[in-house]
């Protein structure tokens, strides 16, 4: 019959959809930009001298040798290596393959070493101190990021991390001072974070108010409330309300003597140990327990969860509350772990960096922790470089987490895929 015409030459029975590769040049382009920066700084603007990397503190039992690198040569070698990786990444895209994560990791590490060598030319870079300070600065970010991960995995956008942390900081200072017990303060911080979460959850889940709006407004509300009470109550009588007991440093014998890792993992205050445990528990819980399966199901496809008898609203409510409690601990770290007293606006945007870590960490507790560590590292690097006299203005180092996050959400670094129902209220 004449009108029958055929087009596709595929067979009748099994026509499998062909996979086509869409070339994505983002990775090699970003690599290229960084390589050019390296070229400009390390080679064309190279600094004479030798850079030494100090791996252990003077006082520790086991001493590692100091690594000495000639600054200019190191810069040249690293720039060449970076260019090589860029070319390799471009080659992979050309041959229709993606750039794997390990290449990105190596690239980042090389650049970092090159940068440290360049910035620390003629000086000694205390690597151990850099790492130790990183943990200290990252701790609240990690708590906050975990709070963000839990909440967003259950489908509620948590812009209120900052508020949860600030409330935690305030209440922990107050409770720890009144009771004279740091643990009571920590518990108070969890309750405070939870209370902020209650409001977020109630407005987002019951009244279906846009979650981002509630989050933003809650941050302002908590800021107003804590500043108000700080000015009226705390400053009037700081001995009674704002001299919290602090967590002591607990040194685990033997283990704490291991170079580099020892001080990081086994020579910390209790709240840091709690942090390590929390990271593991959240990760394990989310991916290997009934709780996690249900949390993720209401965040991905609430209707599907509903049809198998999971109560979406209730699940979200309690997990947002839990998220608040975890973020609240991050607030307690400020008052009980580092500063030792509450101050107005003392979280100073840490909640927003934690949020950035959530996104940069692709809503995964471990990756978010890594992201928080990276951000803490950048902040700490800035102060360390300030001490040894850095050629880079400190403001630009401080900007780094934010710029990296923008690149991340723009898809230049990794691919972020939020839980499908994140931010969407569930209406039956």
């Amino acid at each position, binding site marked *: 019959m004449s009108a029958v015409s055929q087009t596709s030459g595929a067979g009748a029975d099994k026509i499998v959809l062909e996979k086509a590769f869409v070339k994505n040049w983002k990775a090699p382009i970003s690599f290229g930009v960084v390589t050019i920066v390296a070229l400009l700084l390390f080679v064309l603007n190279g600094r004479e001298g030798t850079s030494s990397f100090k791996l252990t503190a003077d006082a520790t039992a086991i001493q590692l040798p100091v690594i000495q690198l000639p600054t200019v040569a190191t810069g040249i070698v690293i720039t060449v290596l970076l260019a090589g990786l860029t070319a390799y990444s471009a080659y992979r895209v050309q041959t229709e393959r993606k750039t794997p994560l390990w290449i990105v990791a190596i690239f980042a590490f090389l650049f970092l070493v090159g940068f440290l060598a360049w910035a620390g030319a003629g000086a000694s870079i205390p690597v151990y101190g850099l790492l130790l300070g990183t943990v200290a600065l990252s701790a609240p970010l990690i708590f906050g990021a975990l709070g963000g991960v839990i909440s967003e995995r259950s489908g509620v956008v948590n812009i209120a991390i900052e508020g949860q942390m600030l409330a935690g900081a305030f209440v922990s200072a107050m409770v720890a001072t009144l009771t004279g017990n740091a643990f009571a303060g920590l518990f108070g911080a969890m309750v405070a974070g939870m209370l902020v979460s209650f409001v977020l959850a109630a407005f987002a889940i019951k009244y279906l108010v*846009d979650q981002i*709006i509630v989050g933003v407004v809650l941050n*302002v509300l908590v800021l*107003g409330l804590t500043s108000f009470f700080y000015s009226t109550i705390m400053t009037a009588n700081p001995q009674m309300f704002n001299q919290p007991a602090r967590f002591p440093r607990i040194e685990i014998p033997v283990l704490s003597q291991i170079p580099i890792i020892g001080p990081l993992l086994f020579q910390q205050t209790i709240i840091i140990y709690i942090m390590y445990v929390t990271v593991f528990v959240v990760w394990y819980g989310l991916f290997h327990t009934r709780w996690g399966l249900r949390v993720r199901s209401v965040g991905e496809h609430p*209707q599907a969860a509903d049809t198998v008898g999971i109560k979406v609203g209730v699940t979200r409510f309690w997990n947002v509350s839990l998220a608040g409690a975890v973020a609240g601990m991050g607030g307690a770290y400020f008052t009980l772990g580092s500063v030792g007293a509450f101050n107005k606006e003392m979280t100073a945007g840490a909640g927003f960096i934690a949020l950035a870590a959530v996104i940069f960490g692709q809503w995964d507790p471990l990756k978010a922790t890594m992201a928080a560590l990276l951000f803490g590292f950048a902040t700490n690097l800035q102060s360390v470089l300030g001490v040894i006299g850095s050629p880079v203005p400190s403001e630009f180092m401080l900007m780094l987490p934010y710029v990296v*996050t923008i690149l991340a*959400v723009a898809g230049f670094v990794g691919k972020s895929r939020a839980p499908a129902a994140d931010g969407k209220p569930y209406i039956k």
Partner: protein
Amino acid sequence: MTDQPTNEPNPGLSSSGMSDTGIAHLEGPLVSTGPVEPEPPSRWRVAMNEIMGGSIMISILSIVLAMVAGAILIAVTDKTVQATAGYFFAKPGDMLNAVWLAVSGAYSSLFQGSVYNFRREGFLNGIKPFMDTLNFATPLIMAGLGIGLGFRVGLFNIGGRGQMLIAIAIAGWIGFALDLPAGIHMIVAVIGGLIGGALWGGIVGLLKAKTGAHEVITTIMLNFVAFYLVSFLLRTPGALQAPGSNNPKSPPMKDTVVFPPLFGERYSVNLGLVFAIIAVIIVWWILERSSLGFKFKAVGYNPNAARVAGINVGAMFIWSMVISGALVGLAGVSQILGTVTTGFSSGIDAGIGFDAITVALLGRSKPWGIFWAAILFGAFKAGGYAMQAAQGIPIDIVLVVQSMIVLFIAAPPLVRAVFHLPTPGVFRKRTKIEAV
């Protein structure tokens, strides 16, 4: 797998179905088109319902509730109240009296600091607080318009701070470094500020259009980037730092660039207010009468349909963020050329970027609504300082009251429940039928 029911007789097209809140889910429309015209025969009843249960009443009641919450805070932190509470059961009158004194004292100084001061001689002196209110309201109007315009396109611009700072950096530099004739100098500085804000906002629109990066994240991040950038410039000689100074602060603005006062030197109100009112009119025209605004709103309500109808959604994101950023930038300009003309530091934005969000929400993203909301919040600010000075109540309470207003406004069912108001029938949430 879509959730779109295919077999419902009257599928709710709006992805939000929450037209009465004025704040809907972000991916969908953020703001309602407001009241639908009442249809006969129940015109009168619907109109009554609208007033009683609808947006205007909700706004007023939200303000009342928030003020009550503020009163509670004032009362519990008041020294006399605390003292008298100790023997409340013996002499309850003492405590109630103390509460009354604390709250009435606070709110009367709030009023006298923001509207009319009866203790001053003559009308011209008495009205000065209201002029302060207008002065505080000026940048709030401008920035609120910027944020509100973003809302109408479905964009949540939390980047007010960054956009203001960049605008301030550029306008400020023009203001102290250039030598131009009066008038022209001012115009050049204003334009510089507009460009700065537009640029910083435009980056967000560009990233959203080209890569899909969520504007909430990018604006938050750009706030910090701008803050550190301006901090760096402020401590760098030859950039924004005042010559011969070690402080991270700029030199004062030249006289040729400063906004002249509107009603004489006696009052703080300056030319900025005129700029603000012009901005209100322009934004009204864009949103209600222009083809650009039509496309903005189409994208805000339903980006998919807009795209299919040939509207370049990405371009709308970019243009709306450019305009939004420019308006917020204008607020920054008004700060340094109108309010603080003696040189600025990195805290010059004074939280206006965030206040503007609450202003836009209270004003339901409509130009004139934003205008009145800004004046209310301007009054809180002006009165808040007076209250702090007169009664020793920290200004932070203004933040609490403002944020509570917005929370209440965002959840009309809550306010209705508190006051036992009827649910307005015309606005009842469309029920999904045969949802699958």
